[in-house]
């Protein structure tokens, strides 16, 4: 429930961004996966050590490791 409230607060603050105002959003450090290799390694360690996986918003194919 707290999460939903947090989401709604964020979305309540949405503003229209004109196309020419998107320079900052296009910066590499603003990407959700700014380093795909690091993200994949982190996901693999998380899956291996926590026995859990998923939820990162992308369809992964698993690490194929035991």
């Amino acid at each position, binding site marked *: 429930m707290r999460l939903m409230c947090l989401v709604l607060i964020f979305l309540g603050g949405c503003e229209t961004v004109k196309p020419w105002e998107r320079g900052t959003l296009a910066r590499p450090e603003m990407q959700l996966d700014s380093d795909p290799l690091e993200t994949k390694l982190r996901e693999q360690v998380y899956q291996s050590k926590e026995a859990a996986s998923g939820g990162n918003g992308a369809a992964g194919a*698993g690490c194929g490791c035991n």
Partner: protein
Amino acid sequence: MKHKSTTVAALTGAAMSLPAFSGTQPAESTLSVSFSQYREADIPKDEVVAGSHERYDIEVGKFRLVTPLGADWSLAVDATRETMSGASPWGTLYGATGEPNLIMSGATISDSRTEVALSSTRYTDNASYTLGVARSEEDDYKATSYRIAGEWDRDNKLSTIALGFSYSSDELSPTEAVLFGRVPEASRRSRSISGSWTQVLGKNAVLQSGISLTKKDGYLDDPYKLRDVRPDERTQWAVSLRYRRFYDNRNAALHLDYRYYDDDWGLTHIPLIYPGIKILA
């Protein structure tokens, strides 16, 4: 005046082509290489009744090539080479006072894994579609997986909806199966569906919420444990939030990643927050 209109149109066109948070065709080929090494902490000697107290030492090398193909396609090649050595827990033995003690293997376990993944993406004005296949091989574990995914931009690329499916077929063939009474061969399957919604909150902030559901079935035990009996089905689900905000006055980007995980094996509520700040030179 005409010149000004033309300039504005060109700038607008260029800005519209700026990436939203969906897949956009790469403008040029990109090659990435990384190498990681980590070592798990040794187990205290007084907690081990047999075997080695040393844990794994793992080295991971990764390679990624992404290149455009024609006007509307791209190809991504990922390769991973992983080597690991150390000791693995075999089981738990309770002491006279009820405290758990570990039975470990010897420190001679050495293994390596190689994975190659290929994926291709087709781009349209407001969407992208990806097909991928991957193969992972170890001495005792082989997996082949497939995935299909799509992303759709909405609201002038201020929001993006993504949906994906994946399927993996894994084959196990534990080493020294006869000697230790392990299952000689086994298989398991995994099917997963995931979705996400990415919303631009302002010119300096973006939020993504994601959800995934995974079902596994087949032989889900660990064949290297002395006595490991697990259900032959597992359902996992997770939700996530990822937030990015750029602070112009600090020239830094704030990253907040949160994930909540649950499954029907009783592994519940793992709230994780990965905060990060990227300060630029």
